[in-house]
C-alpha cells in the first residue's frame, strides 16, 4: 500500500484517462472508465474479449475509427495537461507509443531499418540542397548506433543488420518495442497482448524487458489474457467487464482466481431447458476426435481429443486466438489438419470439405460474409445451395447423367418458404439477395442452409457474432429447438461464455490450442475464468 506521504509526493500521473465514455451507434461500449498510470508503473488492463479494452486503447491512440463514429466523452491528461488525441500521429507527438498485436515490421528490411522506419537519419548532400530534404543520404552508421542504444535498453543482443524475416517471433516483438522506445519523449507505452505469440522462455525474457523499461521511468499499460504474468509484473490491475471498470487491484491484493472471477463474473440465469426423452451419455459417441491438429492462421489447434455424445449440445469456449474456432474449421476440411476424426465408426478424411458434408456434418461459419453466403444470390438459392451440390436434392432428373440435372424451381421455392417461416427470416421474399439482409437474418439463412442438409452434427461457429441481442436469443432458441425436436447434435463455438452456459450440456475450454477440460455450465465463474487462463479449476470433469 502506498502511504499518504508517498501519495502526496507522487501525484503526477504520466497518463490519466477520466470518465471515458464511448458509444457506437447508440450502443454504449465504455461507461465512464477511469485509468491512471504513473511514470515507472506497470498497469495491467484485463477483461474478456469485447469488454472494451481495445476501444479504450483506440481512444488513447486517436484511431480514426473512434472519430468517424462520433468521438468520445471524457478527459485524457498527459503529465497533468489536458490533451486532445485526434490522430495516431498526434498520439505519437504526445509521447504515446503502442506495440501492436500484429507486427508492423517489414520482413525484407534489417532490424535497424525497421526501428528507424520513416524516422531515418540522413545527411544533406549536393542534390538535397536543391531538391529538398527527402533526397538526403541515409546515415546508416548513426542509425545503427541509435538502434543499438534502444536494443541495449531492452537488454537484447541481436545482430541489428540482420533482416527481420529470419528472426524468431520473440525477437520481432523486441524490434517493435525498440522502435517505440527509440522515439524521443516517449512517456506512455501500451502493449496489446504482447505475449500471445511468444513461447514461454521468450515471454520471460520479454517481461524482464518490460520491468526494465518501467525502471527507466516509462508508464506502461499492459493488456494481457495470461493472468499469471499480469499478477507477476503489474503494480496495479484494472479489470473491465462490459465497458465498465469492475475492479481495481493493487499488486499485493491481486490473485489469479480473484481476477478471473471479476473478469467473467456475471450472474447467469440457467433458464430451464426442455428435457429430452433420452439424455446423451458417454455410451453413445457420435464423433470421436483424437490428436487433432489444425493449422488455421491465428487460431491453431493441437493434440485435441474430444468425444461428442449423440444428441448433446456441446460448447467450445476459450479466449480469442487460442484455437476454439479451428475445431469446426478443421473437421469441415477448410484448413489443413492432421489427426483422427471418427464419425459413427467411419474415419473422416480431413482437408476435404465435400467428404465432411457427405458424412452428414454441416457447418455455420463464423465468417458468414466471407465463407458462408453467396451475397448476391437470393435467399432461396443460398438455402438450397449446399444440399443441391452435395446431396443432389432439389434437382429434376430427366436424364440419367448428373450434369444434365436441372434445378427444381418449385421444390426450391416451397422449401425456402418453409425455412423462412420456421426460422422467422425477416425479408421481402425468397428472391431477395442476402446482401441486403441484416446480420441476424443472414445468420438465419446460414442456419437454414445447414439444416437443408439434414445433418447429424451441426457445427455452429460464433453463431451470434455481430447480431443484435434480440436476434441472438432467437438464434440460440432455434439451436435448442433443433436439438430437442430433431435430435441433432450441435457443437457450438462462442466467445461469449454466458451464451454457452445458457444452452449447452457441457462446455469444453480451449487454451493455447489444447483442450484444458470440460465444465458443467453450472460450474463457478472462478473455474471458468481459471480454465480460460490455462489453469485447472476444481469442478473439472474428465475431458
Amino acid at each position, binding site marked *: 500500500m502506498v502511504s499518504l506521504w508517498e501519495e502526496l509526493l507522487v501525484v503526477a500521473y504520466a497518463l490519466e484517462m477520466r470518465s471515458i465514455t464511448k458509444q457506437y451507434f447508440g450502443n454504449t461500449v465504455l461507461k465512464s472508465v477511469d485509468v491512471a498510470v504513473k511514470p515507472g508503473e506497470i498497469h495491467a488492463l484485463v477483461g474478456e474479449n469485447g469488454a472494451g479494452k481495445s476501444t479504450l486503447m483506440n481512444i488513447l491512440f486517436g484511431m480514426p475509427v473512434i472519430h468517424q463514429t462520433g468521438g468520445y466523452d471524457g478527459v485524457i491528461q498527459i503529465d497533468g495537461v489536458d490533451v486532445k488525441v485526434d490522430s*495516431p*500521429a498526434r498520439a505519437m507527438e504526445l509521447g504515446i507509443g503502442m506495440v501492436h498485436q500484429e507486427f508492423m515490421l517489414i520482413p525484407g528490411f534489417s532490424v535497424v531499418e525497421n526501428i528507424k522506419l520513416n524516422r*531515418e537519419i*540522413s545527411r544533406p548532400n549536393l*542534390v538535397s540542397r536543391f531538391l529538398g530534404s*527527402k*533526397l*538526403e543520404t541515409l546515415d546508416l552508421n548513426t542509425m545503427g548506433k541509435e538502434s543499438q542504444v534502444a536494443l541495449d535498453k531492452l537488454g537484447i543482443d541481436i545482430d541489428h543488420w540482420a533482416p527481420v524475416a529470419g528472426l524468431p517471433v520473440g525477437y520481432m516483438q523486441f524490434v517493435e518495442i525498440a522502435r517505440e522506445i527509440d522515439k524521443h519523449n516517449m512517456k506512455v507505452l501500451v502493449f496489446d497482448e504482447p505475449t500471445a505469440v511468444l513461447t514461454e522462455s521468450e515471454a520471460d525474457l520479454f517481461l524482464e524487458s518490460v520491468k526494465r523499461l518501467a525502471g527507466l521511468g516509462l508508464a506502461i499499460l499492459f493488456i494481457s489474457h495470461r493472468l499469471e504474468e499480469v499478477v507477476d509484473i503489474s503494480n496495479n490491475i484494472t479489470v473491465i467487464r462490459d465497458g465498465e471498470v469492475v475492479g481495481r487491484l493493487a499488486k499485493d491484493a491481486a490473485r489469479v482466481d480473484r481476477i478471473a472471477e471479476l473478469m467473467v463474473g456475471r450472474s447467469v440465469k440457467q433458464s430451464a431447458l426442455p428435457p429430452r426423452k433420452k439424455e446423451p451419455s458417454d455410451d453413445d459417441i457420435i464423433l470421436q476426435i483424437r490428436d487433432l491438429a489444425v493449422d488455421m492462421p491465428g487460431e491453431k489447434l493441437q493434440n485435441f481429443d474430444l468425444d461428442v455424445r449423440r444428441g448433446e449440445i456441446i460448447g467450445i469456449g476459450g479466449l480469442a486466438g487460442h484455437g476454439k474456432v479451428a475445431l469446426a474449421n478443421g473437421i469441415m476440411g477448410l484448413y489443413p489438419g492432421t489427426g483422427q476424426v471418427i464419425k459413427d465408426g467411419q474415419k473422416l478424411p480431413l482437408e476435404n470439405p465435400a467428404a465432411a458434408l457427405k458424412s452428414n456434418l454441416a457447418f455455420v461459419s463464423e465468417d458468414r460474409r466471407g465463407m458462408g453466403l453467396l451475397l448476391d444470390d437470393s435467399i432461396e438459392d443460398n438455402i438450397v445451395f449446399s444440399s443441391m451440390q452435395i446431396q443432389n436434392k432439389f434437382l429434376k432428373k430427366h436424364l440419367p447423367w448428373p450434369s444434365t440435372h436441372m434445378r427444381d424451381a418449385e421444390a426450391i421455392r416451397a422449401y425456402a418458404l418453409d425455412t423462412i417461416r420456421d426460422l422467422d427470416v425477416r425479408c421481402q421474399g425468397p428472391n431477395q439477395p442476402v446482401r441486403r439482409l441484416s446480420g441476424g437474418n443472414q445468420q438465419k439463412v446460414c442456419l437454414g442452409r445447414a439444416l437443408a442438409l439434414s445433418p447429424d452434427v451441426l457445427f455452429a461457429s460464433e453463431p451470434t457474432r455481430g447480431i443484435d441481442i434480440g436476434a441472438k436469443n432467437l438464434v440460440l432458441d432455434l439451436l435448442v429447438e433443433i436439438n430437442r425436436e430433431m435430435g441433432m447434435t450441435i457443437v457450438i463455438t462462442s466467445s461469449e461464455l454466458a451464451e454457452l452456459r445458457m444452452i449447452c450440456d457441457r462446455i469444453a475450454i480451449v487454451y493455447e*490450442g489444447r483442450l484444458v477440460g470440460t465444465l458443467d455450465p453450472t460450474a463457478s465463474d472462478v473455474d471458468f475464468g481459471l480454465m480460460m487462463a490455462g489453469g485447472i479449476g476444481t469442478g473439472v470433469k474428465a475431458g
Partner: protein
Amino acid sequence: MSTQNPVIPTKKTGISLLPLVSKNAVPILFAILCTLAAWLAKMDPWFLASEIITRLARNSLLVLALLIPVSAGLGLNFAIVLGAMAGQTAVIAITHYKMTGLWGFVVAMLASAPLAALLGYLAGKIMNRAKGREMITSMILGFFVNGLYQLVFLFLIGPVIPMQNRSIMLPSGVGIRNTVDLFRIEKVLDKLWRPIVLGVRIPMGTLIFVGLICAAIHFLMRTRLGQQMRTVGQDMHIAGVAGIDVDRTRIIAMIISTVIAAWGQLIFLQNISTLNTYNSHEQVGTFAVAALLVGGATARRATIWQAIVGVLLFHTLFIVSPQAGHAIIGVPQIGEYFRVFVAYGVIGVALALHAWQSRKS
C-alpha cells in the same frame, strides 16, 4: 499444424553452386540459349559484339526506367510507353523547329521531361486507384494513351494544331508522316565520344549517359525517399502506419520512371535516327519488361545489374535468332517468329513463376 507434420526433408546438401544456379536460373537458361543460337548462326564475332554494344546503349535506359516502380511495389510498369510517347512528341517538336545536333537533343530532353512527368503523375493517380492490379492497368493505360497519341498526330496536326513544316507532314496536310527522318539528331549522343576498341565502335557518349542514370538510381535508393519507396513496396499498410504518404510515394515513383523512359526513347531514336511515328513506341513496354525478366528480375525485385544483363541476353537472342533459324530450317522468318515468341513467352513464364513463388512463401 507444423509440429504434427513429418519433418520435411531438407534439400540435398551437395554442391554449394546449386542455390546460386537456381536463383539465377532464368539468365543462365537464356545465356545457354544465346550461346547455342550464336554457334548455330555462325556469326562473325566482331559483328556480333558491335551489334550487342549498339543495342546495349540503345535500349538499356528504357529497361532501367522499370526499376523504380518495381522497388515501390508497382510491379512491372508497362506504362513506360507513355514516356516513350512523350519523348517522341519532343522529337517531333524539335524536328519541326529544325533544331540540330546536340543542342536539339538537349532541348528534346528538356521538353519531354515535363510532359512525361505530367503523364507519369496521371498514371500514378490511376495506379493508386488500382492497387494490386497495377501491371494490367499500366498495360491497358499504354494502349489507351496510344489512342490519344494517334488522335493528336494523325488528325489534330494540321486542322487544330497549325504546323508549318510540310516535310514531316502527310501530303494531305493533316497528320504527321509515318516515318520522320531524324538526320538532325542522328547519333548525336553516340558520336560525342566513339572510340574504336579492338575493331568495335563503342558509343561511349550514350554509355556514359546511361551510366550516369544508373548512378542516379543507385543514389536515389539510398536516400530518405528511396527508403520510403522500398518501404511502400514491401508493405503499404505498415508504411502508412509509419506515417509515410503511400499514394504520394507511388506517384513520385511513376513520375521518375516515365521521365527516364522518355529519355530512353530519345536515346533509342537518335541511334536509329528514323522515327516510325505510329509504331516506334508500341513495343517499348513489352520488350523492356521481357529484357528485365530475362535478366532474372521479378515483379517485386529488380536490380541495375539484372537490367543490364537482361538487355545483353535478350538482344543477343534478337540478333542471332534469325540467322540461327535460317541455319536450322532454312527460313529466316522462323527466327523472327522466335523473337516475338520469346518476348511474350518470357513475360508469361516469369509472371507465372513469380506468382508461384509468392504463393509458396
